[in-house]
């Protein structure tokens, strides 16, 4: 210890035999060499045996796939005017793989986004919790970001790893509620649709109307980019790109001008309008009011707004043109007239004296006009919609004949229009009494003026009116003319389909046409009169059965018309819920629409005093 470790010759005790020290060094060297061999073995395993596997893994590591959304196909009207279009919209997306891995830091990022955009934090957390934290697929969290919101996100970009703003084509509409029920809204695939396996999370899917019906055609195929990125997810190079294939273009039968005119005419009213071409069964316009705000439903709608629409007592999501059933009211008198004339139980010259009251046993049925119409024949009875006349006529014709013709005119069955959820309506059947079919007189009397159990939809009335106009041809209503894929031409088309014929003698058709023209010229439908246009029509006032004590304001107002009366080009049916009398409420609306159809395309000045 005194001199420390003085160098010198080998001392006894320490490595007494020189060879022993050498051996020990050799032993250590051997251990080292052994370790080297183990490492070489591991390298052989990793690089040679498993090399291909790891090569795949390294490719997956650096390649990231960013989908490019295909623009949805455009829907056009019959003249090639778009009903709906696409515009670029900003979408907030989260890429789980690029977000911080630690839960606290991840939550901090989500919290910042929530604060910047005023989105509930839970909404963000929920949407990202559904996918693997390892996923490169962007999770679309909120669509339709404003420019201001987009700027905020870009500004904080450094602090928001994994948060990106994508540009996606989004639906844009001529106006907030334009053709809402017809077109339908487009939203992200819901959980149920995802289960079917046809959609990926975040796909935009048509949820109602034509968007849903034609989703497969409209959707197109998303393109994608394979981007090489570094470990921080920064794009380094574009490896491969596949262009998106836009969706197919759909040419509908709708006339945007008529649709807009009908919507404008129904402003502030609840009800439905159907405009149809009696020569082809083409639907020119189909309106249901109140409508929902289709532009708000497409994209991100917050929970409260959604519930407000779904729970709205006015039921804006309901397509009243096909999904609501009403008593036809006096419009049904056309069917009764046709049945009586064709069956010979009624003749044009049959006259009665209308006193305003009709007694059947202990029951008393009233006319809508206090004091009655006085002496009326069939023509006047139809033109003035005399109930007393039809009570008696109906009893003579009988329930069996009336319902037979009603069915022939397509009432009481779905029209087969390409929109989901159509209701069938109801034509009552005879009661079985002692083994024989029988019609209770009271029921027949009620049915004769379109009340009782009868239920029809506005679309059924339009088709029925079209058959009256075109001499008995019953069309399947057509909504879509053809579908064209870019570069492929027409991939689908509908030539139109006749589903039935109503067989009436020509003189009966002529009589109906003449009498219905009188309705508008000097009958109950004068509110629809347009000088210079011959219009045939029928008013109707459907009493609400459920409210027997209902005042007049609770009645539904009907007006069904076609024009020009001698060479019909268009059928217009108007229904106003709780509107009151058909002649006073529905006829003026039909007048506005007919005026737009026949005169406003030429010049908008033909607004003459009626």
């Amino acid at each position, binding site marked *: 210890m005194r001199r420390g470790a003085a160098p010198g010759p080998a001392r006894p005790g320490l490595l007494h035999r020189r060879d*022993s*020290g050498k051996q020990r060094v050799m032993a250590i*060297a051997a251990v080292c060499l052994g370790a080297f061999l183990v490492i070489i073995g591991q390298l052989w395993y990793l690089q040679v045996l498993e090399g291909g596997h790891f090569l795949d893994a390294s490719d997956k590591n650096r390649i990231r796939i960013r989908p490019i959304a295909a623009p949805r196909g455009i829907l056009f009207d019959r003249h090639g005017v778009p009903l709906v279009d696409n515009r670029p919209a900003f979408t907030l997306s989260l890429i789980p793989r690029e977000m911080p891995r630690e839960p606290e830091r991840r939550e901090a990022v989500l919290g910042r986004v929530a604060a910047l955009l005023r989105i509930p934090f839970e909404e963000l957390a929920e949407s990202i919790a559904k996918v693997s934290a390892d996923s490169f697929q962007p999770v679309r969290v909120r669509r339709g970001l404003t420019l201001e919101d987009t700027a905020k996100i870009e500004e904080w970009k450094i602090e928001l790893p994994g948060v990106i703003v994508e540009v996606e084509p989004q639906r844009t509409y001529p106006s907030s509620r334009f053709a809402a029920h017809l077109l339908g809204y487009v939203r992200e695939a819901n959980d149920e649709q995802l289960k079917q396996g046809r959609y990926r999370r975040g796909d935009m899917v048509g949820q109602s109307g034509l968007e849903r019906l034609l989703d497969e055609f409209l959707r197109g195929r998303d393109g994608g980019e394979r981007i090489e990125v570094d470990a921080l997810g920064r794009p380094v190079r574009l490896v491969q790109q596949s262009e998106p294939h836009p969706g197919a273009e759909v040419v509908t039968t709708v006339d945007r001008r008529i649709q807009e005119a009908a919507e404008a005419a129904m402003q502030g009213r609840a009800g439905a309008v159907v405009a149809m071409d009696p020569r082809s069964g083409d639907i020119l316009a189909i309106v249901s009011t109140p409508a929902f705000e289709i532009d708000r439903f497409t994209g991100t709608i917050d929970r409260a707004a959604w519930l407000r629409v779904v729970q709205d007592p006015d039921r804006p999501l309901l397509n009243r043109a096909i999904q609501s059933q009403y008593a036809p009211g006096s419009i049904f008198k056309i069917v009764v007239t046709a049945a009586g004339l064709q069956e010979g139980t009624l003749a044009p010259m049959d006259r009665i004296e209308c006193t305003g009251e009709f007694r059947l046993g202990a029951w008393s049925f009233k006319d809508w006009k206090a004091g009655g119409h006085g002496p009326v024949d069939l023509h006047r009875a139809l033109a003035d919609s005399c109930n007393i006349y039809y009570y008696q006529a109906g009893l003579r014709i009988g329930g069996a004949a009336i319902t037979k013709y009603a069915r022939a005119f397509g009432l009481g069955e779905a029209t087969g229009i390409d929109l989901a959820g159509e209701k069938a309506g109801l034509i009552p059947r005879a009661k079985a009494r002692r083994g024989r079919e029988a019609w209770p007189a009271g029921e027949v009397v009620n049915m004769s003026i379109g009340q009782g159990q009868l239920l029809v939809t506005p679309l059924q009335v339009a088709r029925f009116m079209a058959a009256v106009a075109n001499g008995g041809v019953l069309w399947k209503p057509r909504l879509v003319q053809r579908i064209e894929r870019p570069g492929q031409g027409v991939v689908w088309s509908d030539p139109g389909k006749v589903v039935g014929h109503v067989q009436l003698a020509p003189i009966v058709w002529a009589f109906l046409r003449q009498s219905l023209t009188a309705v508008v010229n000097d009958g109950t439908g004068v509110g629809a009169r347009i000088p210079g246009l011959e219009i045939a029509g029928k008013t109707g006032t459907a009493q609400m059965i459920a409210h027997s004590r209902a005042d007049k304001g609770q009645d539904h107002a009907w007006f069904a018309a076609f024009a020009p009366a001698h060479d019909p080009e268009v059928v217009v049916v108007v229904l106003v819920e709780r509107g009151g009398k058909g002649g006073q409420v529905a006829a003026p609306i039909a007048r506005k629409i007919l005026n737009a159809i026949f005169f406003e395309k030429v010049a908008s000045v033909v607004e003459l005093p009626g």
Partner: protein
Amino acid sequence: MIPIIDRRLLQNVDWTLLVAALGVIGLSATTLATLNVGRTGGGIVARQLLWVAVSALALVLVASLDYRRLVRLGPALYVAGLAGLALVFAFGRSVSGARRWIVLGPVSVQPSELFKLCFLLMVIWLLVARWAQPATLGVLLVLAPIIAVPFVLIVKQPDLGTALLLCPLLVALLVGAGVRLRLLAWMSAAGVAALPLAWVALKEYQRERIMVYLDPVRDPLGSAYNVIQAKIAIGSGQLLGKGVAGATQSRLAFLPERHTDFIFAVFAETWGFVGCLVLLACYALMLLRGFDIAATAREPVGRLVALGATCLLASQILINVGMVTGLLPVVGIPLPFMSYGGSSMLVSMMTLGLMLSVRMRQFQ
């Protein structure tokens, strides 16, 4: 006392050893040049080569000194090294949660790196002391605090890798010093028995690393990230490597610490299995020369110095490559002569210097 290199000494320079080291340095420089690290980009190569130059001077200095004189200075160097470690706690700079560096003007130094050499000389000084013959249990108990104090200081930085490195070094020196193998076996058994205690003392992230080593898919994006990415990099290199342009794992920065502790993975991805064999052959050559110097040393001090120096390099190489290839848990140890870093290069060169010093005086 005057470090004059006389002609006879120069005749005995081990050129093979130096050429092997230069080969590794060359491979290191080409690898570093392909990596765009930091704002300086390829600037790290220039920096590293500057360190190589400085370290080469240190090598010449160490080699020109008589290793016996250095061993005699062991206690003084040891105390100075301990002071350096203590200074880290007082003035150290933190990098990603670890205080390992002291900033000296434009450079930052890692005292724990330099301490390895001090420790080596100190242990040799003790083992060859007259009173310590023969090396019995009593002598080893005297050694205990000399090891324990720096070990704790380094672990607390925390720099578990360097601390653990002291263990194989110590074992190699004890074996080389002729300690009875039965005694060594008992000590090893005691060490294993103490492992559960060590587990308690480890930091959370260190435990996680060991768990990840045992089960790599435990947390693929968290602690296991380095291991998995390194394995992907190495494996995807396959037989002949992807070349500089194709080494996406490294170039696109999927590999963390790719210019320092994980540089072997970069090299393996770029040059493949064949490249790895070349690199490992350089290392093996270096170590074999070291063992040869130890085996042919004229007297015990020289043998222990050469053996210690060789084992210091060997354990760093094996632990680093073992950890990068997934054979060992991840501990932060640089790969000698390959990894970017001044302190590591300086110490590695000085270790070579010690080996040369023994060789040159072998035939005096």
